[in-house]
């Protein structure tokens, strides 16, 4: 973990609800796709955790949904403004186990961290299949960008306005894959876990106090003991996840 004072290079809407923020500054603490930043938003006590969508040596890209007052205040920030962030948080995805044809399943704003993952997998010579679920066509994120990386992309929307009508789990049985990576809302993760045919890794969200492992605000019970989503996660192995009995 490092604290970095980033400069906003770009902060623009990409759909009706989701914005892209590009931050310029040191990214040396980011070591794996699926890690996150915890951003200080002026006027708010707690930092806001947002996944690394993509990064290079001098910049990091975030995609965030405007949900409440904190993300509303983020959307009001301007290019040139400074943002205080704790960066390189969490374990991130492990690409070592992916096999040649991993399946990446994203739901809504669970999609962004899969982009950085897909880029790393492609660099490693793998052939990822990407399956994304959204409410409606206007919500679809990163479809062209994933395709530009050379991934096979499938889309599902609940109203059928883009891709297949229904949930991602309707498409999963038709795909062949060597491993699973998923990020999205809890009910989606659970359904994807139930539908999966291979080993895999799931990325979780939890309300956070600190974001770096000291307050025990974000704990989740697993088969391998209690895990802090911010430090031992957000990515958990499929096999260790417990879906019931939290607390």
């Amino acid at each position, binding site marked *: *973990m490092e604290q970095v004072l980033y400069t906003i290079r770009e902060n623009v809407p990409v759909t009706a609800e989701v914005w892209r923020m590009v931050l310029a500054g040191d990214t040396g603490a980011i070591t794996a796709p699926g890690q996150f930043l915890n951003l200080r938003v002026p006027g708010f*006590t707690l930092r806001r955790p947002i996944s690394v969508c993509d990064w290079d040596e001098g910049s990091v890209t975030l995609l965030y949904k405007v949900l409440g007052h904190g993300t509303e205040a983020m959307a009001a920030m301007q290019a040139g403004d400074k943002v205080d962030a704790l960066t390189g948080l969490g374990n991130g995805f492990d690409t070592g186990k992916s096999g040649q044809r991993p399946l990446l399943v994203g739901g809504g704003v669970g999609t962004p961290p899969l982009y950085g993952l897909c880029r790393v997998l492609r660099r490693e010579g793998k052939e990822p299949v990407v399956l994304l679920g959204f409410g409606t066509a206007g919500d679809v994120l990163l479809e062209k960008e994933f395709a530009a990386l050379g991934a096979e992309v499938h889309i599902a929307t609940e109203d059928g306005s883009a891709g297949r009508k229904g949930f991602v789990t309707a498409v999963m049985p038709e795909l062949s894959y060597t491993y699973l990576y998923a990020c999205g809302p809890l009910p989606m993760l659970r359904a994807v876990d139930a539908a999966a045919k291979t080993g895999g890794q799931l990325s979780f969200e939890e*309300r956070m*106090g600190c974001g770096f*492992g*000291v307050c*025990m605000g974000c704990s*989740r019970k697993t088969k391998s003991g209690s895990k802090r989503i911010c430090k031992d996660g957000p990515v958990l192995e499929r096999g260790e996840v417990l879906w019931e009995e939290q*607390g």
Partner: protein
Amino acid sequence: MGRTRVTLSGWELDNPVIPASGTFGYGLEFAELYDINCLGTFSVKGTTLAPRFGNPTPRIAECPAGLINSVGLQNPGVDHVLAVELPRLAKVYRKKVIANVGGFSVEEYAETCRRLDASDQVGILEVNVSCPNVDHGGMSFGVSPQAAAQVTKAVKAVTKKPVYIKLSPNVTDIVPIAKACEEAGADGLCLINTLLGMRVDLKTRRPVIANRMGGYSGAGIFPVALRMVYQVCEAVRIPVIGMGGVSTAEDVLEMMLAGAAAVQVGTANLIDPWACKRIIEDLPAAMERYGMDSLEEIIGGAHHG
């Protein structure tokens, strides 16, 4: 260094700044960020006899000047703390720590303290009496002078280490409870623990916290904490460690003028991981600004005249 030195029951601390229990883990995450040997000492995560997972999530709710937590004393249990956490800490931290202890019966408090008494790394036992007493319908030990005194006596009987009782602010009058602990043999007092609080999510119309309520801490509680430290210091002779919302070097000075012999910093560590280091570095300039030559001589200054 000498100007910021303070003493707790014969234990000399380089400075009065102590990270509060539950906001500093077992120190390791912070040791990766800065040399934690700059701290006066620190209070480790609340330890109970058996391991505890704690409460369901969400456990955290944001407030304008603080947060509400309902972690529920998640910890790996005293034996694991002694066998794993403290030895690991010894590699990065040379000083003794404050061992914070929770419990759900008088016997449990005593047994956990008896086991911690064996560790040379423990300088003070800090007994958190805000926990529910399962033998008495779950009412907190900290709301009754008798129950708090009972815990104090039981712990004093099993250890030679200084015993500091950490008081709950969720009471009509904290002074009789503080006095009862002093009479029962407490070597010092720590206050305040979190204030019972709650938030409702306007979108879901449900409490934000899974357990509905939790402990409110952070900058917003500082005036309440300061008031209680002041009241208790007026009534007891034993040292008081003041805490609740402390976020700056100036807050430390205020707490000490109200009577605190040392000061703990909790929630500020979660918001700014370098908070304690910054406060320690800011102390000399803050003392200079208000014409204070040494911290020991300002303790309780607000009570005079």
